[in-house]
């Protein structure tokens, strides 16, 4: 009888032990689930006070970007302007925007691709801080060739934001994916996650960096620096909410494409004049 009671006691104790141990374990996990307070989800959409940007209300805009590859001449003024405007590292391994060249030679099925960061093109420009496409195909028979400017796609479902462990990178209400450089821990998970190679690690500041569509310019009514300097109008930027804006007209009047649609990221940089080889 006594033994029996002891056993029962044991069982109860065991269960309570199991319970408390499980609870302790669960507590740690639960803490993460608890993390975003209930207000977080609603605050973003409700009539919360917009960020303190003088003369700008982010709820009134939805920015979009267009690239007309049929117009691009590969002069790389955009790359230079971007590096300058945003204090980007001045070498051949850090770009917020870059330009690719696709060349089909006669008799070849796939395109030859290079960017201005290719050693041949760096040799032609003279240094990594200057940008120029070398006329490397002048002796070959070129069947078709074109330039494709690249930049961050500011995706609707950004893979980089999804994987950021801290919330240092996020998508603003007006559709721009930005990085909070004072909060980034520099794990570079987002660099890995971006299918477009748009992100890079800034070794001076030890944080990740990428294109912001020049958020400091567009919130002041200016164009992004790359759009500002493009001499042929190959880069188009504007507010998708405004039906008369250049980008709305561009999307409306052209059959636009996006890059890597299958990634599910839903990019917001719209392309015209690219073909199957563009990656």
């Amino acid at each position, binding site marked *: 009888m006594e033994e029996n009671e002891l056993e029962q006691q044991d069982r109860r104790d065991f269960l309570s032990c199991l319970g408390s141990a499980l609870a302790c374990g669960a507590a740690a996990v639960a803490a993460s689930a608890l993390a975003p307070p209930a207000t977080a989800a609603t605050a973003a959409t409700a009539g919360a006070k917009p960020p303190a940007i003088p003369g700008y209300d982010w709820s009134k805009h939805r920015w979009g970007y267009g690239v007309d590859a049929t117009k691009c001449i590969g002069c790389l003024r955009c790359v230079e302007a971007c590096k300058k*405007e945003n204090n980007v590292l001045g070498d051949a391994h850090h770009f917020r925007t870059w330009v690719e060249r696709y060349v089909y030679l006669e008799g070849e099925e796939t395109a030859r691709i290079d960017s201005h960061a290719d050693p041949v093109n760096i040799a032609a420009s003279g240094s990594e801080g200057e940008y120029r496409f070398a006329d490397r195909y002048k002796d070959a028979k070129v069947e078709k060739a074109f330039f494709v400017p690249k930049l961050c796609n500011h995706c609707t479902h950004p893979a980089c934001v999804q994987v950021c462990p801290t919330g240092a990178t996020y998508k603003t209400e007006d559709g721009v994916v930005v990085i909070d450089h004072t909060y980034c821990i520099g794990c570079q998970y987002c660099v890995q996650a971006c299918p477009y190679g748009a992100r890079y690690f800034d070794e001076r500041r030890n944080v990740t960096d990428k294109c912001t569509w020049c958020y400091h310019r567009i919130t002041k009514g200016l164009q992004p620096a790359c759009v500002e300097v493009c*001499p042929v109008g190959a880069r188009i930027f504007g507010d998708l909410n405004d039906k008369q804006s250049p980008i709305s007209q561009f999307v409306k009047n052209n059959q636009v494409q996006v890059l890597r649609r299958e990634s599910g990221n839903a990019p917001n940089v719209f392309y015209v004049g690219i073909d199957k080889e563009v990656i």
Partner: protein
Amino acid sequence: MPRHIVRLVLLMVAIGAVGYVAKIFFTADSFYEYGHYRGKSVAEIASDKPKYKGSEYCESCHAERFAEWSKGVHNKSDIGKVVKCEVCHGAAGERDVRGMFEHLATGVDHPNKLKLVVPTDARKLCTLCHEKMPGRPAQQPQIVVASHAGTQQCTVCHNPHSPKLNLVSTAPTPIRGDAARGKAKAAACVGCHGAEGVSVNLPGPSLAGQNAAYFIAALKAYGTGARDNPMMSAFAKGASDDDAQDLAAYFAALKCQSSLTAEKQAAAAGRATASKCIACHGADGVSSNRAWPNLVGHSKDYLVAALRAYKSGSRKGNMMAGIVKTLSDAETENVAAYYAGASCK
């Protein structure tokens, strides 16, 4: 329950509580304000000072250049082709960078302490857009550098603020003159320009073999006073369009004769300087465009006088004015000797 287990559970609860308090305490203010990020960072990122200011910023001080540019082909906003000032001259603003962090609205602007680039190597700059290359759309004006300009700088012929050349369009193209009629009318010219258009120690230049289009344009320039010479102006005013056409046809058909007075040594030295001329006037003094004068057959003295006239401004011509500025007196002499020594073919 045994004491050690009670204490352990209490300890774990305490650690958990401390952790939770720490989380709340250390969570940056404004986090979760709009979503899973620091709400204040939005305004911080937006606060950066823009560096590129747009062409309008330049207009107030550089109105003349701005006007020149805004009328030219580098500002064709109707087709979206606009080469703004900062594309070639660099950003007009600068942003302070304090330590490694930005989000700063301070920094110097041009003209305060920030000097802008005045590109010196136009060959390098202009070819970024205009070098012929596969991949550039056909509507983009492109050149093969070697055959277009040799080693010449683009700015010799083109004004970068309005680079399209107007020479070709102003030259009267169809030559409907008659050489036989022209021969009769040329009797008045012989006194200064020599028989058969070859002037030897006469006041006027040789005209034999001169490009007809240029000839007509030059005569017209005398007529309107754009070129100033009392004698020639009188003649030109008396000459009709038909006269000009006939004379042009006559002189163009004549064979030129090289001046033999050119010193050999100076001519050789002039070859190097002539690299500045050959894009338009050819290595042998025969111009690539009929609207431009041939230099072959002219005397050295005449060529020197012409160059000096451009230099002093008494003879007008944007392009030539730009070139003669770069010529020293010795170079002027030498290059004149070089073309005077060129042989007529």
